């Protein structure tokens, strides 16, 4: 848990005092990632760096796991907080192993212990220890270096991590990969993380909570979905972008709104049966045909079933595409557009049909929040 209590930083500049962070109050619950987001100069980085005193607070307090850190020795405080920066900052004069082992060595771990820990971390970040440990940072790619940067921050297993635009300098393709890897690690590690970003998409992807800063003040602090659905003021609305409702697609998975019951036909059913099933389930255009293992193998079109006689096995069309339960709605919408479909069948890990999802379902799900707000507004009036 990280709690900031009236944390304030005033810089004295030749042009007078500048308030970089103005009485910031917030709390990040244990095991969650909080993204500090905002335009440059908004105070997000200053706030982050006051937690490990890279920048000394003018006033206010930082609590970590309930303990006031004000009285702690600066070096000891920093050793108990993982720190990852955009420029990575691996020491070029040290091998990868030495870089990762820096904090354990400062903490006085014995050799066997830190060596074992380094190997464990290398497996965690999916880099082969024997291939990398004796090499130097300059021999690694940017993406590999930042993985090592993350491993170094995790080396002494700190409960709290601070990350200052950690993936900002990595090319977009590798960035997405590292973000995914990091989220996967975080599922097991459950660190409490403060993470500075200026990228709204990264914030939505990585954050359990998002704190939006503007001109040194914390403007809004909420979950990504709340933020996108209910921005507090015009500044935040414009910062999130006019397509913010679309960004919520990233946050919802297929399994959140897939229909449980689904009508199907088998190859041995005749087309009349297919037509009556479509009517029973209210399908306007087509119905999925499944094999004996309940895997979707094709579709029967309504237009065809109405005009033709025969068995389904002789008249089905191939299935253009399917979705999986853990796909997000952004991907689903993209697939629908790409295949000119208003619905998609959904399959489980075994490839068995387990439901379907329609454009109406998506609109309805995203719109639910707005309808509640409107209802509230009406009752308030």
């Amino acid at each position, binding site marked *: 848990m990280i709690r900031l209590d009236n944390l304030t930083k005033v810089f004295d500049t030749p042009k007078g005092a500048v308030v970089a962070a103005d009485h910031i109050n917030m709390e990040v619950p244990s095991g969650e990632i909080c993204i500090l987001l905002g335009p440059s100069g908004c105070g997000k980085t200053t706030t982050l760096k006051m937690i*490990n005193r*890279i920048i000394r607070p003018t006033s206010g307090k930082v609590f970590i796991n309930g303990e006031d850190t004000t009285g702690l020795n600066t*070096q*000891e*405080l*920093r*050793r*108990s907080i993982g*720190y990852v*920066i955009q*420029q*990575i*900052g*691996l*020491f*070029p*004069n*040290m*091998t990868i192993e030495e870089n990762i082992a*820096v*904090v354990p060595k*400062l903490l006085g771990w014995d050799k066997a212990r830190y060596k074992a820990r380094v190997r464990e971390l290398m497996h965690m970040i999916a880099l082969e220890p024997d291939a990398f440990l004796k*090499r*130097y*940072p*300059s*021999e690694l790619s940017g993406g590999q270096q930042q993985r090592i940067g993350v491993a*170094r921050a995790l080396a002494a297993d700190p409960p709290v991590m*601070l990350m200052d635009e950690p993936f900002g300098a990595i090319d977009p393709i590798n960035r997405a990969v590292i973000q995914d890897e990091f989220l996967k690690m975080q599922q097991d590690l459950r660190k409490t993380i403060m993470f500075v970003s200026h990228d709204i998409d990264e914030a939505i992807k990585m954050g359990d909570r998002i704190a939006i800063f503007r001109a040194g003040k914390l403007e809004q602090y909420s979950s990504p979905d709340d933020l996108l659905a209910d921005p507090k003021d015009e500044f935040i609305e414009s910062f999130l972008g006019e397509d913010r409702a679309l960004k919520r697609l990233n946050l919802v998975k297929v399994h959140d709104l897939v229909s449980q019951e689904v009508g199907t036909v088998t190859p041995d059913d005749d087309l009349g049966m297919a037509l009556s099933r479509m009517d029973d389930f209210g399908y306007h255009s087509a119905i999925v045909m499944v094999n004996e293992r309940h895997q979707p193998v094709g579709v029967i079109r309504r237009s065809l079933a109405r005009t033709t006689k025969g068995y389904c096995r002789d008249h089905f069309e191939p299935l253009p595409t399917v979705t999986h339960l853990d796909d997000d709605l952004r991907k689903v919408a993209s697939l629908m557009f790409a295949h000119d479909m208003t619905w998609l069948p959904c399959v489980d890990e075994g490839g068995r049909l387990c439901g379907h999802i329609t454009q109406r379902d998506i609109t309805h799900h995203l719109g639910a929040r707005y309808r509640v707000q409107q209802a509230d507004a009406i009752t308030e009036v």
Partner: protein
Amino acid sequence: MEWIQYAVANIDLLAARTIEHIALVGVAVGIATLTGVPIGIAITKNERLAKTVLYVASIIVTVPSIALFGIMIPVLSLIGHGIGYLPAVIAVLLYSQLPIIRNTYTAINNVDPALREAARGIGMSQNQRLQKVEIPLAVPIIMAGVRTAVVLNIGVMAIAAYIGAGGLGTFISRGITQSDPRQLILGAVAVSLLAVIVDYVLLSLQKRLTPKGMDQAVLAE
């Protein structure tokens, strides 16, 4: 080529003078490194002090060596060392300060701020940062300063023969006073060769002291 015959005939003397020369420069630059590097590191903490120190060191280098020896004769005569070994070593010591202090200062100051921040954020104390990160990264540039000092002062030390410090300059001074071109040329060639060889030896030492993993291209300067 009479000077070569002279050199062969006096090979023992040549060897002795060469060793004398190396010892003089070695002792002086050695002491200068022990003082210059800590000064160079210390002044990175205070920009105004740094400017003053580097200014003073530059002024010292502009004083011609023969003038410096002249100034030191009356001063050091008070302790009975107006000429000879001591003023020679002191002169070289003073001349060496600028390249060593300046290179140390520049090297420590030029350590990537991101590395500095990473080292701080990780929880290294100021001394640990110096020992584990800043000095190792500065070594190649500090060594380049030492090399400059050594090469510069092999020349200065040749002039110190005039105040009785010994070394290869003795061949030159005697060659002039005795109108003996053999000694003159031998002295000049020996001093020049010594400078080139020592520079080369120190360059290989510099490469050896450079931490592995550091970009070699950066160090070529």
